[in-house]
């Protein structure tokens, strides 16, 4: 029995969370350092996983299986494919930055009692989320996945509801009301999705007699397991609904702007860059893997919804007056691209979608964290309260611009590669879809540049004259992210090598082939 690497990667942050929560109230700083160290150690483990993973090898690697509830055939069954490794790396990579960016976000404003330790709680919750997310990227047992998919709502709920953005124009009272509204909305939306999925999970067990993803896929491929078309479609819808809420897909998206607006910037990054990725990841792994026929059946509707998400999210981003809500709507537009890439069923689309998940995570983290630094300085989220920041804080403005350029997919930065792949993949099969989606890139330029122009350029507002530039800690957060954006934009090969074989497997799951180029087809 070899060392259970995958389990360790998830257990480490979970233990770290418990340890962080147990740090005495007076030792706040120690708790922060502990959380940072744990997240860095997790990153090391994730890197080890990535190194041990052989892209050309078996589909699921580093597998671990332990009996858990034999009566229902539930097993602690972990394994990663290239997509899982990529997203696990992304998660493990972002958490240290989130911890570092949120260094002071949960400092108590007053001392209430000796046992009052919000800081410890904040960082423990973040680590808890990390553990759950990593486990859901690793689980190859459907039931096991479901448990972590749902369980991550609990720490997220407390992170949104308990640690709001202090920069609120309505004062403390309004902040608390809106924060709890956002947290409850987040919880209810995702619970509703999750419960429908639970029904589908049970239905799957009844139909397939197993929870193990590789077993079911193998049985379906070999024809041992027949599933009626209607059964398959119903089960697909049950799964897809939950993932579409989490992703979020139009029209199930309205929880995201509230949650991202009210949460602190690092938590907003945690939501959109990490937690939401579980939704799109699960579409690729579970919807397409378990229900290939139903996926094809649903493709037209999903594509239309994805297109609406792209255009609608971008248009709404243009109309926002709140910086964080703007980023949230931009994310909705980007999730539209990801889902589009998954469901066009071409290698380029799916590789693009996977890269998009990683790149969107990094680029949104960069943009949102810088926005958070800006907001914490001025104490307002309204775009109208800013102007001319570029003059007083050039480094902040420069990093903000790069984050924005990544959001609008400027060639040379990582998101371009993925967005273009998605577009090409979409265009190859459905030219009209590809062209409509292309409008998204113009709109992306619009909302990004309008945001930059209104906040960073023009005459300096009197309130902003003494605005300090980025501090060392903040620069340490942003600079590596930007370096990564540039690196992956110029040389995405390490990532594509990881992803390509997994995409090939998925394509064979759904039994689709890339459309041939016209010239080849004519021969």
């Amino acid at each position: 029995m070899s060392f259970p690497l995958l389990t360790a990667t998830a257990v480490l942050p979970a233990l770290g969370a418990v340890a962080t929560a147990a740090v005495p109230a007076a030792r706040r700083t120690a708790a922060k350092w502990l959380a940072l160290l744990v997240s860095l150690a997790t990153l090391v483990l994730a890197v080890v996983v990535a190194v041990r993973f052989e892209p050309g090898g078996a589909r699921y690697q580093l597998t671990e299986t332990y009996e858990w509830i034999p009566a229902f055939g539930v097993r602690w069954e972990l394994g990663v494919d290239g997509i899982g490794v990529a997203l696990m790396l992304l998660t493990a990579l972002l958490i240290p930055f989130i911890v570092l960016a949120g260094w002071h976000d949960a400092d108590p404003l007053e001392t209430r009692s000796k046992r009052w330790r919000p800081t410890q709680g904040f960082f423990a919750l973040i680590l808890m989320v990390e553990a759950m997310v990593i486990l859901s990227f690793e689980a190859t047992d459907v039931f096991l996945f479901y448990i972590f998919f749902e369980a991550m709502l609990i720490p997220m709920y407390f992170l949104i509801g308990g640690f709001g953005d202090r920069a609120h124009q309505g004062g403390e009272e309004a902040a608390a009301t809106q924060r709890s509204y956002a947290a409850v909305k987040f919880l209810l939306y995702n619970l509703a999705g999750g419960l429908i999925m639970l029904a589908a999970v049970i239905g799957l067990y009844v139909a397939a007699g197993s929870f193990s993803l590789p077993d079911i896929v193998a049985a379906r491929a070999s024809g041992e397991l027949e599933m009626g078309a209607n059964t398959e479609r119903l089960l697909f819808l049950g799964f897809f609904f939950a993932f579409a809420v989490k992703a979020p897909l139009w029209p199930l998206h309205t929880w995201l702007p509230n949650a991202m607006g009210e949460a602190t910037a690092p938590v907003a990054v945690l939501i959109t860059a990490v937690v939401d990725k579980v939704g799109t990841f699960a579409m690729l792994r579970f919807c397409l893997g378990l229900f290939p026929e139903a996926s094809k059946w649903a493709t037209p509707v999903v594509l239309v919804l994805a297109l609406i998400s792209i255009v609608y999210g971008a248009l709404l981003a243009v109309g926002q007056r709140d910086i964080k809500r703007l980023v949230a709507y931009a994310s909705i537009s980007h999730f539209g691209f990801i889902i589009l890439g998954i469901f066009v069923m071409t290698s380029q689309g799916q590789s693009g979608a996977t890269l998009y998940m990683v790149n969107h995570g990094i680029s949104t983290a960069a943009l949102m964290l810088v926005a958070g630094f800006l907001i914490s300085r001025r104490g307002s989220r309204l775009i109208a309260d800013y102007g001319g920041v570029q003059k007083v804080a050039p480094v902040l403005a420069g990093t903000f611009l790069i984050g924005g350029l990544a959001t609008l997919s400027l060639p040379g930065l990582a998101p371009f590669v993925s967005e273009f792949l998605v577009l090409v993949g979409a265009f190859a099969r459905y030219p009209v879809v590809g062209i409509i989606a292309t409008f998204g890139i113009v709109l992306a330029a619009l909302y990004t540049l309008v945001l930059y122009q209104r906040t960073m350029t023009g005459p300096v507002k009197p309130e902003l004259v003494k605005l300090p530039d980025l501090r060392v800690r903040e620069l340490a957060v942003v600079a590596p992210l930007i370096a990564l954006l540039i690196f992956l934009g110029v040389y995405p090969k390490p990532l594509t090598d990881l992803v390509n074989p997994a995409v090939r497997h998925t394509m064979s799951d759904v039994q689709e082939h890339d459309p041939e180029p016209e010239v080849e087809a004519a021969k």
Partner: protein
Amino acid sequence: MIALLIAAPLLGAAVLLCGGRRLDKAGHWIGTALAFVSFGLGAVLFAGLLGRGAEDRTLVQHLYSWVPVEGFQADVAFRLDQLSITFVLLITGVGSLIHVYSIGYMEHDERRRRFFGYLNLFLAAMLILVLADNYLLLYLGWEGVGLASYLLIGFWQHKPSAATAAKKAFLVNRVGDMGLSIAVMLMFTTFGTFAFTPVLDSVGAATSGAAAPVGEGTLTAIALMLLLAACGKSAQVPLQSWLGDAMEGPTPVSALIHAATMVTAGVYLIVRSGAIFDAAPDAQLVVTVVGAVTLIFGAIVGCAKDDIKKALAGSTMSQIGYMVLAAGLGPIGYAVAIMHLVTHGFFKAGLFLGAGSVMHGMNDEVDMRKYGGLRKYMPVTFVTFGLGYLAIIGFPGLSGFFSKDLIIEAAFAKGGVQGWILGTVTLVGAGITAYYMTRVMLMTFFGEERWRNLPAASPDAPDVEPAAGHGGVPHPHESPKVMTVPMIVLAFGSVFAGAFFGIGERFVHWLEPVTSFEHGHPPVSALTVTAATVTVMAIGVGLAWLHYGRRPVPVVAPRGSLLTRAARRDLYQDDFNHVVLVRGGEHLTRSLVYVDHTLVDGVVNGTAAGVGGLSSRMRRLQNGFARSYAVSMFGGTAVLVAATLLMRAV
């Protein structure tokens, strides 16, 4: 070697932008030095190409695989051939000169280091654009120059107008970029690749019947999408509106990016994709029409602007219209278009630098109505500007004469009615060019010295802004050497480049292996065309002299005719955009925000309210009487028992 060419300015950009304040003192020297390194490398490569046979002058350097994905290959690979080396020399040569010029021009700007960083970034992106070996890498350069242009137009970000102009330029360009990305996608679905050689070869093979035919519809679509991209970048109608506003940027930027290099990228794209356009005659016709319309459009706008830079911007638009028109003529025009592009790069950059020099001496005043009689105060500027002026109007013997004349000939050679129409348009355009350039010349350097008694100087009109910058009466003076030397070099180019390229068709033959070349057969003899061109030019100059040379120029612009007023407002294109796109967009987004809040969110909140209402009604059943609970227990049990019995009975 080719990669080093790009790496030099890229390194400069990275060092200057990340280096921080420590580099403030030396930043401009680093930037300039690296631009010259790049130029030197370009010259060495050029010499290397000269040493090879005419058919053997294509070097491809494959660096690494950029996006390796199933069924999709995009490499970082560079291609050096006659066409790209021409651009490389133009870009790095003019670029280096403008770096030198900027040392003087930006001397008092505290952010000079950053300016040079952006300039270097631009050089790198532009070199990637012209050296790329596939359309995706070209796209990277394409948007890269867009970014550099955005940063440089908005360099004085504290001015809201500059920030708006920068944003507008980027957005309009994005519309064009959309065309380019759709074109690349079409290529991918049609050919399975988007590297130059396979795409262009298979188009050629298909049209010559050597391979399976590719639908002409597809090719036309690709060509039109490429044209859309070219329109965005080269400020052609209908995507021209950003160029005038882009003059908010510092003048060296206008000279480098918005006159000599970046805006000509569209012409490069069309010429590079010549095989596709040749196979799609409908698209070619559209290209010539776009070129012709822009040519006249830009010229008319140029006539009406009082802002010296905007007048020059109109002229740039118009001259690029010439190039696009030529490029639309097919193999007769490709090489000619590039030749005009190069000569235009010299004289237009020179003119802009001259304008910058004038502004430098006039407290950054741009209104030509507040100039006048400056030739005495700025002799060097006057002479270099004057030579550029003679070149652009096509004065016989200077560079513009050779290149423009060739375009006019080629337009006539198109043949048939089209040929006559296009030829006439280009001729008329030449006349208008002469008119507006003479106007600029006369208003700036001749006539009375109107700047001496500006309204700002008189205390009677305190509400009028002083003439920008330092205020008060300006003291025109010649610019420092660091600025005049590049102007002199460019003036040399404006004078001699045309003759060097044109005599013996040296330039055309140099490019022939890449662009192919056919001699056109104009319906009238070449000599007649030349004579007509010179006549039209003389008429234009004469008219301008009548209007602006003989009569004093009023300091405040007269109301003018309908056409003048329209031209001052860029023929109402901005107003159209504003009403249709900006307003419409605002309404759309605002109503969508409302819909999102009330409708999409409303459905969910409505459900929540419904559940809440139902549960508050249900709550009344819980009245707290133990006996009523007992009743429901008994009732429930009775129902269950009855149901069980019934089930068994059935």
